[in-house]
């Protein structure tokens, strides 16, 4: 790598990371007329040409997951250990990001998610904080995302959903067999089950052609217009404005800070290995909460020796990751009807019945649950499956079509020492220190996981399962690819990194519009909330900040 190439022309805005949130920013900014360049370290694939139902390629050989040799991460479970290499939270790093491979759960957050500290006060060992805005501020943007991006669901089916201003643009899929079992079992137990809002369309919304009915879904790319993928929706829409340019396989290694304390742009390594500087009036980070924090830490200067905009010292801290926990139920081939657990588009019926705090359960908060696909032959989900021999063969033969799974997205509490920082030993393919995760679950996380997995077992048993395999929380593995909290939004610059618009308190033209800003994790899959927030922040950038103005929200306490 090399010569500094000549500087390209400055632009209005740079976006780093073109996943769910960077893609949303690209659409909003370019449609508002800002000349914008989007960088992604990963490839810019063509869905209709590169995606198909190849389990080995997509699920086992990391065609979309980050290559662990090129972009390793490390983890340690206590402060004194040396961190080990581990593919923690391997969200695809590519144009479209995690929306390329996701199942697409897009439930709305709840009003309580924005005010955990007001509701619960000081919780020992946790660092709860309220958000600097409320559900009502986000609601219009939730609706915008649901309609522009494409979400299927049934308005009014979720008994506990807060106010919504509009229904869904697409009806849900027909139920799978295990989905039907889930509805029946929930009705028996008095639980409000409904089709989890799904980032896919089943109709021709926005001219899409959702021909993919293959059941190759979670972790696979979708060659059709069914999946709501940034790659096939907001990126082409942004390009169509003529104001947006994609630079793929371009690795941004530093945000540059000028003498005036504002970001001047970024330094990146282009696909041929040249180092290039790109200037812009505004720099927007959307790499995900791990990599956005890492890039800010790599962007050290005399003004910010501990990482860009990190005067609070909070950068990287209070990281939350959710964790997918679940229970599998096995049925008897000789007696029961097949469940065809490999069918469907991963999620099916789900519920938020157990979402709000009920202290009699022994924990605060709660989370979403859902029946979901047990997936395809190589990797079908049966934790504890015999690894070889006749027992393995019998297990596959007897249970592949006779298994059902009910999972949950753990609403983990923020803990200041759970954090992302730079690993002192391990480097990536560009020779830069990788993100190191330090994490120990809060006792509330363990208790919630145990209580909810056990509740899921009750539902499985009501559905007729004859054996259950619970997966409880042991340690955080990042298996949801959800990342939040590493650059908290808040009103007080000593207790947060970003303000209510995702704007760095200390660097006025630096914005972070991914999950980094989430003060608490929420108990729902975060992407809808993130995208709505990215839309909201991007609108502020285009309509207020770029016009030389400043506004703030006043919250009624």
């Amino acid at each position, binding site marked *: 790598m090399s010569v500094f190439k000549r500087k390209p022309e400055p632009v209005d805005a740079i976006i780093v990371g073109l996943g769910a949130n960077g893609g949303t920013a690209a659409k909003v900014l370019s449609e508002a007329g800002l000349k914008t360049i989007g960088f992604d370290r990963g490839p810019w694939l063509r869905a209709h040409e590169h995606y*198909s139902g190849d389990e080995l390629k997509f699920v086992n050989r990391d065609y979309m997951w980050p290559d662990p040799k*090129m972009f390793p991460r490390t983890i340690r479970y206590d402060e004194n250990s040396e961190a080990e290499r581990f593919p923690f939270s391997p969200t695809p790093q590519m144009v479209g990001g995690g929306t390329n491979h996701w199942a697409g759960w897009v439930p709305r957050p709840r009003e309580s998610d924005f005010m955990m500290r007001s509701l619960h006060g000081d919780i020992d060992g946790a660092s709860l904080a309220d958000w600097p805005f409320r559900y009502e501020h986000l609601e219009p943007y939730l609706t915008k995302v649901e309609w522009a991006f494409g979400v299927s669901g049934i308005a009014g089916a979720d008994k506990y959903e807060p106010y919504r201003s509009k229904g869904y643009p697409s009806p849900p899929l027909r139920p799978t067999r295990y989905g039907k079992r889930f509805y029946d079992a929930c009705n028996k137990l008095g639980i409000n089950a409904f089709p989890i809002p799904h980032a896919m369309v089943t109709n021709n919304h926005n001219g899409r052609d959702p021909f993919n009915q293959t059941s190759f879904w979670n972790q696979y790319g979708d060659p059709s217009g069914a999946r709501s993928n940034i790659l096939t929706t907001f990126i082409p829409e942004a390009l169509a404005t003529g104001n947006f340019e994609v630079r793929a396989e371009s690795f941004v290694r530093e945000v540059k800070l000028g003498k005036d304390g504002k970001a001047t742009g970024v330094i990146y390594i282009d696909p041929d290995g040249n180092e290039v500087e790109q200037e812009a009036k505004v720099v927007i980070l959307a790499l995900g909460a791990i990599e956005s924090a890492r890039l800010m830490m790599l962007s050290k200067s005399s003004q910010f020796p501990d990482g860009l905009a990190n005067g609070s010292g909070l950068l990287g801290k209070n990281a939350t990751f959710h964790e997918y926990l679940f229970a599998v139920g096995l049925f008897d081939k000789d007696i029961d009807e097949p469940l065809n657990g490999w069918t469907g588009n991963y999620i099916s019926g789900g519920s938020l019945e157990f979402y709000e705090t009920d202290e009699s359960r022994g924990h605060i908060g709660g989370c979403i649950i859902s029946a979901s696909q047990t997936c395809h032959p190589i990797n079908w989900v049966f934790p504890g499956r015999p690894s070889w*021999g006749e027992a393995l063969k019998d297990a596959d033969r007897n249970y592949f079509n006779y298994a059902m799974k009910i999972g949950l997205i753990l609403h983990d509490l923020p803990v200041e020492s759970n954090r992302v920082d730079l690993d002192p030993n391990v480097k990536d393919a560009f020779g830069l220190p990788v993100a190191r995760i330090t994490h120990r679950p809060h006792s509330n996380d363990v208790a919630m996981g145990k209580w909810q997995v056990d509740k899921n077992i009750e539902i499985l048993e009501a559905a007729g399962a004859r054996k259950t395999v619970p997966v409880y929380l042991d340690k955080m593995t990042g298996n949801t690819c959800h990342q939040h909290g590493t650059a908290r939004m808040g009103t007080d610059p000593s207790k947060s990194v970003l303000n209510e618009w995702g704007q760095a308190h200390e660097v006025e033209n630096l914005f972070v519009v991914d999950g980094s800003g989430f003060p608490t994790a929420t108990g729902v899959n975060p992407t809808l909330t993130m995208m709505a927030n990215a839309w909201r922040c991007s609108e502020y950038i285009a309509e207020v900040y770029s016009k030389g103005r400043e506004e703030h929200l006043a919250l009624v306490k």
Partner: protein
Amino acid sequence: MTLKADWEVIGAPVDPDTTDRLFFTEHEWETVEAATARIIPTDQDPGAREARVVVFIDRYLSGIDYVYAAADGSGFLKISGRYADAWRARMADMQKTYREGIRDLDDRSVLEKGARFKDLSEADQDDMLETISGAPKPGKVTLGTKEAVTTFLQGSFDEGLEFFPALCLHTRQGFYCDPVYGGNKDQMGWKFIGFPGPKSLKDTMDGTYNTHEYFHEGEYDWHELIPHLKVSTWAESADS
């Protein structure tokens, strides 16, 4: 540099009946074939031997030309640049893992059973796999129980695996992969398990392969599945 989106398609689907060896020696081939046949044994249904799992593993270990099938299954992708560097390094490690693992398996077999692994009886081969696995041979799954486990990862990548876990994972992959990779001959793994997979990867790209008949069959009414809809204040009704 060729960008990932422009990786060229090279080669052709692997012929499962080939006896050409790209990586293994003849002895290694026979040893791996024998071991995979104990991992997924042949009974009233075909096992790893019939599904040509050894062909699948040999191609995979031969370099980086059989890592990713082209989306439509017409051949394989030619990996470029930093991706190729990473895969070459990883493959060199895995080749070493296999070479040394096979040698170790033979050494122990000679020591404990008096012959190399492939020449042992099935029962003795199972003993040796038990030895290198470091755990008792897995017992049959029984119903009527609850067995807790912790930690679950979505993907199962093979980087850094030791010989026996790698061999178990690759055997499973070779038994159930798309046949383009050389295993799962005639889709026998899929037929055995009851998975009605696509005729070709191409059929998954254009709507030809459709699985809706395996969803819930027949009529359904969202108002029955979701009783709350009957009292919901939302006026829009759901179509089924």
